[in-house]
């Protein structure tokens, strides 16, 4: 079996090792992120949640996943 290459990306500031060419939709499913309650940024650009299945992750990508918390 061909070994899948791993790449380093950052999710919310922390380094993660993921499969190369992993789609962001799959990553978020793996992380059990409730898509309706979050917004996602890839390299400082907001991603349209409808297109998550089209975006493949590359080396050194920076993902931010944010939601609402209590605040004044």
């Amino acid at each position, binding site marked *: 079996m061909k070994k899948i290459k791993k790449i380093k990306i950052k999710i919310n500031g922390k380094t993660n090792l993921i499969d190369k060419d992993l789609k962001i939709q799959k990553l978020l499913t793996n992380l059990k992120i409730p898509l309706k309650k979050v917004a996602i940024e890839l390299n400082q650009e*907001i991603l349209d949640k409808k297109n998550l299945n089209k975006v493949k992750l590359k080396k050194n990508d920076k993902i931010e996943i*944010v939601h609402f*918390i209590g605040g004044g």
Partner: protein
Amino acid sequence: MVKLETKKLRIANRKFNSRLIVGTGKYKNMRECAKAISLSGAEIVTVAVRRVNISDKKKPLLMDYIDPKKITYLPNTAGCFNSKEALRTLRLAREIGGWKLVKLEVLGDKKNLFPEMIETLKSTEILTKEGFNVMVYCNDDPLMAKRLENVGACAIMPLAAPIGSGLGILNKVNIKIIRKQTKLPLIIDAGLGQASDATIAMELGCDGVLVNTAIAKAKKPLDMAVAFKNAVIAGRQSYLSGRIQKNLMGKASSPTDGII
């Protein structure tokens, strides 16, 4: 029986019965926060945008306690110190679920937490052009309030005193001047310490107040939530009722005729 006011608080063409907006930060836990909101009668709550905790997904989510379908979420930019950060935060907030009504708060100093008004003005203009309805946290400066209005703010929200200070309204004159010059919703945001401060804000003619710390950090937050609810209603009613003239000397309340 006197009929109470039925005029609603109108912000960016949305109507609200309650004139009290509450923050959702600093509570002991989500349960207490949700209960306080319910007791306060608030229909708008401010919320912050932060990173999802990827490693601990068992942490309770705000949306599980406060239903955004029933209570209007007002995303804020607390913790932003320049226009770039504030714009990024609110664009993300809009992406979460289509929020267009937002609270802009760009701070200029980590100690006194006063608003950085140049960046605030710049951000208000950009956000308005992008279709946001921007409620703007600002200092109590009538000239700056006017400029915010001119670039499209949908509500003017001057501080009473520094955020979380509990000092109450420090400059009533400026608040009155701002009230006189604008027809936009005027909401006192930050610095209130107790329920009577909210009454004073309403008596000055403000359309509403925004409170977080004074409720969340009171010894009994739930009781204080009720106190603020009543204080806002009392202040509004008092304002609409028209106060008496102030006099230097006393005026007897009982008739002077027929004294034995």
